[in-house]
C-alpha cells in the first residue's frame, strides 16, 4: 500500500500526516489526524454529517480524497470554539435545543458557519438552503433554523 505525505492546515494549524491510497478525507481526519468532529453517516455524500470546509467552501469529507487537501486549508467543527469560548452558533444550538442525538451537529455547524461568514444576515430561506445538504433525523430542522437565525439577527451575541 502506498502512503502519501499530506501537509495541510487544519483549523489554522499546520498538520502533516500520511494518507493511504484511496483514503477519503473523513477517515484521514478521524484516524490519521485525530479530529473526531466530522462524523461518518452514509459514506455516500448524502447526509452531510462529514461536512468540512476546504479553502472556506463546504465539502463532504467522505467524497474527498485525503491526498487532495495537500497544501489546502481544512476547517472542521473542532475549530469553532476559541479555547473555552463557544462559537455563537454553538451557544445558540444549545439555547434553542438544536441538537438531540447530536450526530448531525458538527456538520450542521460547519454549514451554518460557512453561510454566516459569507452572508451574515441570511433570510430564513437562505438558511434552509444552506443546511439542505445536512440531514437531521431528530429535530425536524425547526430548532436548527431558529438557532442559526438567532445568531444572524444578533439575538445571540457574536
Amino acid at each position: 500500500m502506498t502512503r502519501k505525505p499530506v501537509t495541510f492546515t487544519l483549523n489554522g494549524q499546520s498538520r502533516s500526516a500520511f494518507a493511504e491510497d484511496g483514503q477519503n478525507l473523513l477517515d484521514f481526519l478521524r484516524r490519521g489526524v485525530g479530529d473526531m468532529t466530522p462524523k461518518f453517516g452514509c459514506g455516500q455524500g448524502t447526509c452531510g454529517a462529514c461536512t468540512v470546509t476546504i479553502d472556506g467552501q463546504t465539502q463532504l469529507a467522505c467524497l474527498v480524497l485525503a491526498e487532495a487537501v495537500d497544501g489546502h486549508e481544512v476547517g472542521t467543527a473542532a475549530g469553532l470554539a476559541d479555547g473555552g469560548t463557544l462559537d455563537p452558533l454553538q451557544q445558540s444550538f444549545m439555547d434553542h435545543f438544536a441538537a438531540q442525538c447530536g450526530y448531525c451537529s458538527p456538520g450542521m455547524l460547519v454549514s451554518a458557519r460557512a453561510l454566516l461568514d459569507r452572508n451574515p444576515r441570511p433570510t430564513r430561506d437562505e438558511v434552509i438552503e444552506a443546511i439542505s445538504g445536512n440531514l437531521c433525523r431528530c429535530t425536524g430542522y425547526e430548532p436548527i433554523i431558529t438557532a442559526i437565525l438567532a445568531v444572524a439577527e444578533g439575538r445571540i451575541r457574536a
Partner: protein
Amino acid sequence: MTIVETYRTLEEAARAMGGDAVYMGGGTLVMRAVNEGAGPPRLIRVGDPGLRQVRSSGDRITLGAGVTMAEVLAHRDLAFLHPVARLIGGPQVRNMATVAGNLFAAHPYGDFAAALLALDARVIGAGQTGARPVAEILRDRGRAGLIAGIEVTRPRDRRAFGFAKVSRVKPKGVSVMSIAAHLPRESGRIRDARVVFGAMGATPLRASGAERALEGRTLDAAVIADAAAAATEGLDPPTDALASAWYRREVAGVHLTRLLNEMEQRR
C-alpha cells in the same frame, strides 16, 4: 484497493487511461464506489487549474471540464444555467461536482447533462481542437474519452430556455424527472425545438414527440397541450425507489405543461 495517480495535465492523464483506470472529476460519484470498497483499481486525477476556467467569446461560452456547479452559479455570463446548477445536489455537492462529471452521472443523476443536451452543447476532448455534440458522448459514455471542456451557446433571450426538476424532497431531492426545453423563436415561431428529459432513461433523452408538436408553432395553450400529449412518445422510463415507470409516464406531460406555461408567461 484503489491506486491514485495524479497528473499535471489532461493529456498526460489521457495517456495513462485505459484498462481498468477511471478518471475522477469532482469525486462525488467515483468516491462513493471507493468508500464501498468497489472503487476502480486505478483512479486518475489531474491537478491542472486550467480545467476550472470559464471563457466567453460573444454568445459562446467554454466551460472547463472541472468547473463546479458553485462556479457556474458564481459566473454572471452563465445566468441561463443558474436555474439548473442551483438544483444539483446540496451546497456541499455543488462545491465539488463538475460540469463534465455530470455527463457521466448514472440515473437518476445527470440533470445538468439534460440541460446541456437541450442547449446542444459541444464537448471538447483531451488534446482535441474540434468539438463533438454532447449527444454523442451520452450515447456511448464508456468510450467518451477524457473531456477538456464544454462549449455552450447562450440562448437568444430569456424566454428561450427553461428548466424544471421534479423531486419529492425539497430543496434538495433526487429527480423523479428533470425537463430542459430550448425553444428559440424566429418571427414568433419555434425553430429547432429541443426538449430533454432527465431521469426518464439511462441517460438524458430528447422527447422527440414533444419537439415535433412544438416545431414551427407559437407557444399557446393548444400547442402546449399537444406537446404534453406527446411527451413520453418513444420513452421507456425506469422504475426505481423514487418513482415507478407508470408514475413517470403519467406525470411527464403535466410537468412539461407547467414548464412550458411558465416559459410562455415570461417577459
